[in-house]
């Protein structure tokens, strides 16, 4: 303990005070008040109302019938004691001292009897506050008594082997895609002017299908690109797709010999 203090002092090199030119590095023993004690005292009460309640309850007095002068005396002596101990007192404690003094002084004054009936007893407001505070002091204790998690209650839970946390992929509405495309179109005039517009989509699809086919097989027989079941229109679409692919150099058509098989292949292989 002492070591710690000493170390701190040497590190900080800050004297508590300078007396007659000499730095005082250590508090005189007789001035020493264990800080714990002060804190405990302060923390014992949750404020002036709590302290007042304590003073009242200690004497088994009814809140409704507080001997204001006596309570004021006791309260004030506590406050003075704390001030004497140089405890930094919350302002509320001093305010309460003032309130008590005020009430006491008003009660000592001779009361002009009848007509001032409506004037409230000077203690009334204080009593209301004390009562109200006491209710919640009690409520806090009751709350503390309630069975609660972490102390009185354990929630039952079972293990889950594989949570398989399925995070669903976003759902997309076709319309969202179309709207997105419209925006792109609006932005890029390219769609407005180019031949793209006239292009039947099925050709595009077929182009993708053929490219896919060709990329997976080195050579694809020309007639393998066609699906007879699709009929004439299907054949035309496929043929258009092949021509388009040729034009874009996405495929090559090769024929080894006259009237031999025509192969479709990826142009990279040349």
């Amino acid at each position: 303990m002492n070591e710690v203090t000493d170390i701190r002092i040497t590190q900080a090199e800050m004297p508590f005070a300078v007396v007659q030119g000499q730095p005082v590095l250590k508090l005189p023993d007789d001035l020493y008040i264990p800080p714990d004690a002060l804190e405990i005292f302060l923390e014992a009460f949750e404020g002036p109302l709590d302290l007042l309640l304590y003073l009242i309850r200690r004497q088994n007095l009814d809140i409704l019938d507080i001997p204001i002068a006596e309570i004021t005396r006791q309260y004030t002596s506590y406050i003075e004691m704390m001030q004497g101990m140089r405890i930094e007192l919350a302002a509320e404690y001093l305010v309460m001292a003032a309130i008590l003094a005020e009430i006491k002084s008003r009660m000592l004054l001779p009361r002009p009897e009848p007509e001032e009936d409506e004037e409230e007893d000077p203690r009334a407001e204080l009593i209301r506050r004390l009562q109200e505070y006491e209710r919640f002091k009690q409520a806090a204790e009751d709350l503390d008594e309630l069975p609660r998690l972490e102390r009185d209650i354990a929630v039952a839970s079972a293990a889950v082997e594989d949570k398989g946390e399925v995070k669903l992929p976003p759902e997309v509405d076709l319309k969202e895609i179309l709207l997105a495309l419209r925006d792109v179109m609006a932005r890029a005039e390219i769609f407005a002017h180019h031949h793209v517009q006239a292009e039947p989509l099925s050709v595009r699809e077929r182009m993708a299908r053929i490219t896919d086919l060709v990329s997976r097989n080195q050579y694809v027989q020309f007639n393998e690109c066609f699906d007879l079941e699709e009929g004439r229109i299907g054949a035309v679409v496929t043929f258009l797709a092949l021509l388009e692919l040729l034009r874009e150099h996405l495929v090559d058509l090769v024929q080894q010999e006259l009237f031999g098989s025509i192969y479709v292949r990826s142009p990279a292989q040349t």
Partner: protein
Amino acid sequence: MDIEYLKKVVEAALLAAPAPLSLNQLNALFADDEKPGHGLIKEALAALDADLEHRAVELTEVGSGYRLQIRTTLMPVISQLWTEKPPRYSRALLETLAIIAYRQPITRGEIEQIRGVSLSANILRTLQERDWIKVVGHRDVPGRPELLGTTKAFLDYFNLKSLDQLPTLAEIKDIDNLEPELELTHPNPDRDSATTEDTDETQQEEGAGEETPSEEHDIEAPEDQKAQTAEKPAD
């Protein structure tokens, strides 16, 4: 839907979920065309509760829904499992929480008036971090102070189904019983002695009282506040 199956699903869900489940949440487990509806789920819950009678857990309903918890009779043994001590809460925190619970919605200033001390920011922060209180609105006065209220998590933590289940608040005794005349006419001997002995103190006090007439406002102000809150039944 087969109630036996539903019962199993409900039990599994309550045991698997990290927090209590509401009827809505239980219902949402099922595909649209298979949703049992609240009625059937309640039936399943009741059946489950009956099944569990001789088991280690019991079904309870708290603020945010249903949960299964270890029977309290087994807790003394089971609590051996915890190596850490359960958290304790300071009086200041509990008082603040109690005031918010019984008087919600309430402003910080109003809490301070009731407790007679200013409220540390720590307490409010702790309460909010524990998700026990939240800002539920703003009072329509200058500064628009925040109105605080409790959450479902608060109910869950304290094993309450609703605020109704809070212990009843002590009654306020009737102030009309005050008999000031009596005391004034027959000051008790203690007081007498007190006043004579402590003249110095008394004077100091009175002096203090005069110096700070503004305090009177502080006393008077809460007047309507109290009246207001007192009328309102605790909910």
